[in-house]
């Protein structure tokens, strides 16, 4: 019998957070090695194999310890008081009534922040707790620790804040006018990125211009912001948290706590999805402040509603584009202005604006470019990183423009794109040479030439010969089992899109990762341990790290240690960079270990080191075959190497012209979408999506295709349903009831065609995978709906009214 008889919180769970985390991360990446693992068996689980996730078993049994699952016997629950106005002066904060509630252990305001009062990824502009002014609805004002989450919520409700409500700044373009109210003292411009290339006065035979809008998309990861802060005996703090970048959190937390960084130790807890929303801090500093004040562990878990206020979103954007082309379709110029609403705080807006501008003409050769991208402060919700990071907004606009240009020229839209396609050797609008594969035309041809799905309603079956008598399957029609149509008013459309994304951090950023690799014999078998601070967020990085170690060291058994700050920074799990950069670091550390080992073998056995290799747990020579078992060479010794690895450097761009080799690698994906549209009701059923993507090297084909599926589905969401609706600075739909993400009924069958054109500059030739599929599925779906309806559709997400014209 299981029993529990404690006052809240009192689960009967024995495991401490540490034990749970150990379960999450310490599982060996493979089964115990067989006595004589063959070379082929290793190859099956090395680089290029569809090795299964090492954390899969824990995740399917419910044992994997996500950040919201952590628990300690004496822990308190934290909660946050958030501003109810988008812009207001704080007159007073009265916590006295809240403090009298039994079970409340602490209430903290800005006066209780011992160190730096502000934080931020690129600009230190966001208060840890608001002091004199709130700049967006949901800004944190005070935090509470109590013995039960409900007690904490009631205490939050009992705090009295006196506000002088001010009129919010809510329009990003208007915010740039000189007479606008300033959200911050230095003005509302976060960054203006200029690209100037070629002749600004170039003229063309055909000119197409349009303005486009992209709504505010939410990452909508399923695992809410959460973590457990545990005060330590040395006056420091141990924080177990779901994040994308442990070390950038550590530096910011330490500064605000007024502690040296070595007193702030972070361990990655299980991460329930990220997609950019965990790059910025959420509950980290707050939980640490409460834990240090109370001397007890503090757990914070945001509700879904709070999560909508607890992280940054994708920038809503307004984009003005003009394309000029010769009568044969060759692009002559692109002129564009892009306004990105960054909301109340800068987050990563500076880098988002750079992406929108430098990649703003898409994967096309354009000799003359005038591009201006502005990231702007308003009193709307703060925006920052989301999968695609500035390229998604631009891609919707430039791909819509390409379709309109094709229509005007009477050209096939794919043919127009192929005619202007970027390729290896092309020059970007920044002047950067594209110096590895850029198969833009090939990707387009592949999605164009893929077999089409059957026509609407064309099903096999006993009545297929009498098409007029067939009853349609409602589940395959727009509106589904809502029974809104039996096929009448339904029109099919096909659309295409292609996008470009930079991989890794750009503009001269020192973008590195650190890996510690250890080789030893355990119970007579060689075992590799890989330790990095890289965040596994679901993408499968733990799987790939182990595959790399197997391939480089010829050892079957690999243990991936939990990611924490006791090893150097791995950089962020974002920008499609982690397999490239942390993968590169793991490989480099493995190579260092291998060389140390082979040096030893060469000396001991009198052979040339150059002719030695590791395979199947043995040292082999090209001339003499197997020389010795790895375990025998190692004995009781441990070989350990820690390597910091960097990709080749990038450059800042010129502030006036945008010229510079800012990006380390470009990545491309193309989509074809087939839709059925109920033109009377404005309902869309996506019938099929085909994606072609160049990945350089498929490190793990199973996981890679999963990334392409997932990214494509998020682009579908932006095309058809996902938008945080903000009115007067207030969020109107902070729930999964009102903010819709695609269900299994919304996402169609997805075909994936993977190209592997090696990038000679990258480890294993790989190319970042995570973001490209998110970028162009949106414009492909919109193009398909346009084809079905003839509507202009210059805003995403498309609303039924936009189609039905009500």
């Amino acid at each position, binding site marked *: *019998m*299981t*029993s*529990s*008889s*404690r*006052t*809240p919180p*009192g*689960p*009967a*769970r*024995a495991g401490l957070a540490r034990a749970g985390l150990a379960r999450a991360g310490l599982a060996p990446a493979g089964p115990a090695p067989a006595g004589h693992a063959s070379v082929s068996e290793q190859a099956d689980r090395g680089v290029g194999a*569809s090795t*299964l*996730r090492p*954390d*899969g*078993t824990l*995740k*399917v*049994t*419910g*044992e*994997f*310890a*996500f950040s919201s*699952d952590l*628990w300690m016997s004496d822990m308190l629950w934290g909660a946050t008081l958030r501003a109810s106005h988008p812009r207001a002066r704080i007159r007073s904060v009265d916590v006295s009534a809240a403090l009298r509630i039994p079970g409340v252990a602490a209430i903290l305001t800005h006066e209780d922040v011992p160190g730096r009062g502000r934080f931020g990824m690129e600009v230190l502009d966001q208060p840890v707790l608001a002091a004199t002014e709130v700049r967006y609805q949901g800004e944190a004002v005070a935090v509470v620790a109590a013995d*039960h989450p*409900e007690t904490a919520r009631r205490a939050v409700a009992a705090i009295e804040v006196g506000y002088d409500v001010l009129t919010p700044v809510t329009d990003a373009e208007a915010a740039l006018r000189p007479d606008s109210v300033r959200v911050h003292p230095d003005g509302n411009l976060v960054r203006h990125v200029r690209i100037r290339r070629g002749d600004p006065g170039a003229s063309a035979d055909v000119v197409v211009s349009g303005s486009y809008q992209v709504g505010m998309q939410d990452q*909508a*990861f*399923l695992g*809410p912001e959460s973590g457990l802060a545990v005060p330590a005996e040395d006056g420091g703090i141990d924080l177990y948290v779901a994040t994308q970048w442990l070390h950038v959190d550590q530096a910011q937390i330490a500064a605000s706590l007024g502690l040296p960084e070595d007193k702030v130790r972070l361990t990655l807890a*299980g991460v*329930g*999805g990220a997609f950019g929303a965990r790059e910025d801090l959420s509950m980290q500093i707050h939980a640490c402040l409460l834990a240090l004040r109370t001397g007890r562990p503090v757990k914070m*878990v945001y*509700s*879904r509603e709070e999560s909508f206020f607890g992280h940054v979103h994708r920038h809503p954007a307004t984009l003005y584009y003009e394309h000029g082309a010769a009568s044969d379709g060759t692009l002559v110029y692109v002129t564009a202005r892009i306004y990105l609403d960054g909301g109340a705080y800068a987050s990563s807006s500076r880098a988002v604006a750079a992406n929108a501008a430098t990649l703003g003409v898409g994967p096309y050769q354009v000799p003359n470019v005038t591009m201006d991208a502005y990231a702007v402060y308003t009193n709307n919700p703060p925006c920052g990183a989301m999968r695609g990071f500035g390229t998604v907004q631009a891609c919707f606009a430039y791909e819509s423009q390409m379709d309109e240009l094709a229509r005007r020229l009477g050209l096939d839209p794919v043919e127009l794109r192929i005619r202007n396609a970027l390729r290896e050797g092309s020059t970007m609008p920044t002047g950067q040479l594209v110096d590895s594969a850029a198969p833009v035309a090939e990707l387009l041809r592949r999605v164009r030439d893929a077999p089409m799905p059957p026509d609407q309603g064309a099903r096999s079956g006993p009545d297929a010969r009498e098409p007029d008598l067939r009853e349609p399957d409602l*589940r*395959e029609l727009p509106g589904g089992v809502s029974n809104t149509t039996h096929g009448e008013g339904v029109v099919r459309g096909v659309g295409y899109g292609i996008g470009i994304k930079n991989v890794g951090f750009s503009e001269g950023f020192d973008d590195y990762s650190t890996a510690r690799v250890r080789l030893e014999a355990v119970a007579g078998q060689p075992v590799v341990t890989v330790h990095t601070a890289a965040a596994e967020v*679901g993408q*499968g990085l733990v799987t790939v790290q182990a595959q790399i170690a197997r391939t480089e060291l010829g050892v079957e058994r690999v243990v991936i240690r939990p990611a924490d700050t006791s090893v150097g920074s791995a950089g962020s799990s974002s920008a499609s960079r982690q397999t490239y950069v942390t993968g590169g670091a793991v490989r480099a550390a493995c190579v260092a270990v291998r060389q140390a080992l082979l040096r030893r073998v060469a000396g001991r056995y009198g052979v040339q080191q150059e002719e030695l290799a590791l395979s199947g747990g043995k040292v082999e020579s090209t001339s003499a075959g197997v020389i010795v078992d790895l375990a025998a060479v190692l004995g009781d010794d441990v070989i350990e190497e820690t390597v910091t690895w960097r990709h080749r450097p990038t450059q800042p761009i010129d502030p006036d012209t945008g010229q510079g080799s800012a990006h380390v690698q470009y990545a491309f994906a193309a989509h074809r979408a087939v839709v059925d549209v109920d033109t009377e009701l404005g309902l869309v059923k996506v019938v099929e999506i085909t994606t072609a993507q160049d990945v350089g090297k498929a490190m793990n084909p*199973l996981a890679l295709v*999963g990334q392409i*599926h*997932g990214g494509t*589905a*998020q682009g579908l969401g932006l095309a058809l349903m996902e938008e945080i609706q903000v009115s007067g600075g207030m969020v109107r739909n902070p*729930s*999964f009831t009102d903010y819709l*993400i*695609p*269900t*299994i*009924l919304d*996402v169609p069958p*997805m075909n994936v065609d993977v190209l592997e054109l090696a990038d000679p500059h990258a480890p294993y030739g790989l190319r970042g995978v995570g973001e490209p599929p998110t970028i162009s599925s949106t414009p492909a779906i919109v193009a398909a709906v346009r084809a079905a309806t003839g509507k202009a559709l210059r805003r995403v997400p498309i609303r039924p009214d936009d189609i039905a014209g009500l």
Partner: protein
Amino acid sequence: MRVTCTVNGAPTVADDVWEGESLLFVLRERLGLPGSKNACEQGECGSCTVYLDDRLVCACLVAAGQAEGRDIRTVEGLATADALDTVQQAYIDAGAVQCGFCTPGLIVATDDLLRRVPEPADAEIREALAGNLCRCTGYEKILDAVRLAAGRRSAAAASGEPKGSAR
């Protein structure tokens, strides 16, 4: 208040439960069973799907007191000591697990589907799992996993084997 129920076959008592707590909170925070997840806590995402007397429910929408005397089965109750359930193994093998936060709820919902419909068509799978949100996979490999599990369960049933699969 005290809540007495059966959880994964074991008689279970939770004491000092506040009346406003959900079954999900009791499972996660009082009974040491955090496998059922807390993604929305308003019945929209299916991450907390459990069996209540053999019917699928969102544990977040069940008040703790409603569980009194009932039989509850969570994702933690599907595997045996030495073998994963066929559905669990299929999710791993098909690549249907990424971040894994939706996975426990989807696995319970899939188990329910396959108990009712041993060989579901794709449209039936989609309908049955429409209440379970996943943000990582785009659902393609979840469909693969369900098809794989259905095939393996049918094959096992045909050959008279138990439904579990060796880990």
